[in-house]
């Protein structure tokens, strides 16, 4: 049996999630290549294919109409589509501009109407095509990605956490940021990263997005009452990597 064909595609993003693929070290990466054939990966290889793909990893957000057709073409060729990283999953950090009416003028001034500077609101790629699985995070958790691929190769459903980062902090016995006089988004943030940020003394910014049905009203109340935020800053906090969820709520 031939090995499953895997390809990587990139849209509006920093391509850091692709870089994570190079950080496994020699043995894990070479072993991965024993199980899959990487057939297209523009950032790392010149080879291209028009053949059907078993697993397509799509990185980056949908931000302009010009990219719609390319996304649909990938969907047509791919048996399984994985949104790879937060930009592809929900729009990620790119959506932080979505509520600003003047972002183009602010950045490009009088040149902002030039056609090649076209950019609309940023969305996850599921705004345009059906996504089968989501590898959350900014950047992705590279070991979770291996888990997802491994599950798919074994014909099993990948398990993606839908509980908050607070669970992982408790498991690690990390002191709560609020008890240190700081703030944190861990109570709403989707776990799966093993909560490295609070353990390193900084707040969780929910870079993997929110758990389903986050209670934003209670979150803002906690920021005001326990972290001393102004109501305005508390309301803005939820936009960091999760602006689209805020707009939808």
């Amino acid at each position, binding site marked *: 049996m031939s090995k499953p064909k895997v390809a990587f595609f990139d849209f509006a993003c920093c*391509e850091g999630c692709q870089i994570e693929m190079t*950080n496994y070290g020699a043995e894990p990466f070479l072993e991965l290549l024993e199980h899959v054939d990487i057939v297209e990966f523009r950032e790392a290889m010149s080879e291209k294919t028009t053949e059907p793909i078993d697993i397509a990893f799509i990185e980056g957000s949908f931000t302009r109409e010009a990219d719609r057709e390319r996304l649909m073409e990938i969907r047509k060729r791919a048996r399984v589509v994985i949104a790879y990283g937060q930009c592809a999953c929900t729009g990620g950090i790119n959506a932080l501009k979505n509520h600003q009416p003047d972002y183009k003028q*602010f950045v490009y001034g009088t040149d902002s109407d030039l056609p090649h500077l076209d950019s609309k609101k940023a969305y996850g790629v599921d705004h345009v095509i059906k996504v089968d699985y989501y590898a959350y995070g900014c950047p992705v958790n590279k070991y979770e990605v291996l888990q997802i691929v491994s599950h798919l190769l074994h014909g099993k459903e990948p398990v993606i956490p839908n509980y908050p980062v607070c669970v992982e902090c408790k498991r690690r016995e990390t002191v709560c940021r609020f008890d240190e006089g700081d703030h944190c988004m861990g109570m709403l943030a989707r776990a799966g990263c093993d909560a490295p*940020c609070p353990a390193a003394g900084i707040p969780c910014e929910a870079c993997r997005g929110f758990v389903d049905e986050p209670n934003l009203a209670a979150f803002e109340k906690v920021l005001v009452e326990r972290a001393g935020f102004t109501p305005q800053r508390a309301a803005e906090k939820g936009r*960091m990597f999760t602006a689209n969820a805020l707009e939808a709520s």
Partner: protein
Amino acid sequence: MTSTVHIDVHHLTRVEGHGNIVVNVTDGAIEKCEWQVPEAPRFFESMVRGRHYSEVARITSRICGICAVGHTLASVKATEDALGIEISAQSRKLREVLKHAENADSHVLHAYILVAPDLAGAPSVFPLVETMPDVVARALRLKRLCHEWGSLIGGRTTHPTTVVPGGMAEVPTVKQLAELKEKLLAAVPDLEATVETVAALAPNIPAFDRPTEYIGLSDDENYGLYDGLIQSVLPDGTKQRYPVADYRLVTNEFVVPQSTAKYTKNKLSSYAAGALARFNNNYDMLVPEAKRAAEALGLQPICTNPYMNTVAQVVEVVHSVYDSLRLIDELLDAGVRLEPLVQPTKHGRGIQSVEVPRGILFHEYDYDAAGICQGGNCIIPTNQNHNNIQHDFDVLVPELLAADTGEKEMELALEMLVRAYDPCISCSTHHLDVTFVR
């Protein structure tokens, strides 16, 4: 002489981000010869408006997944400048080790994964898994080492977590630093083998010289990666320094129709940033081991062959390993302890710079009394190189035509030229002119 050429490389491979090469030559006349940047703009400078100073670097780090450490450092330094924060000597040393890790990490990726296939006649690193297994295994081993090296100090390498305004949110233990030292020492044979591999492939590097201006950070005590003054060196060796706060007078941005990124120029029609620009500016400040590597690789200042940027990167990898060993020894001697973050003493505007793998990077922010960001400006190295790449094309294409170069060979030569700059295109589409709200 070649008379008709039609090159249309859409979304050049083995570079970060999206760029196109278009060359049309009919009956010997060059009708079009362009390096185009169609990357989707992402508007970071707009996004930071209204964010608290503690959040700004976490946002602007996301400009680039390869130089995330450098963006974080430039951003945090600019914020500290704006808020009147002086960090401790320990924080600075840790950040310098982290900066070295990023430089080595990115250069290893570029030299081995993105450039080496061209020199070995392969479309990517994947066929080399069969034909040069030792080299590929060494590349992945070194890449992993750099990832562990940076992660120990920065929390992780793609969007580091520990570097925050006021210092470091977390520090490694003495034991962890001692282990890092051992790992770096154990990698010396791999470093030496890297220099040997590149020296063996170097005859395949195209011979092309176009003297230009080279701009990088420079410092009297260091090679100028974490900090320094802006320095320009011209092909005749004339050097001039400028304060970092005057970066707009050096970059002189302008808009061109073929690019979502702006172009820059200073004394000449274009200038180069990156490893070769740093090497040409700061050769004297390299550690002896790096100077020996340069000699083995046949690289001397002032080198005006842009393809040699990759060779300069290999020299810098050697420099970063040995200079980190020195810094780690100093940290181990002094002992390492978690320090409280230094708090703001004022508010206003801050401008700072670091060298990222692809060259000099500027960040500027303005903060109100509550520490809320009012606006920002980031000028990225690749965006400073786009204009120089275009000027290289303008000289290289006629040379290749005169030398009777075929279309395919010309396409490869142009692709290799762009790759040599190690462009980081997603980065480069974010700078802008900003009107600060006061």
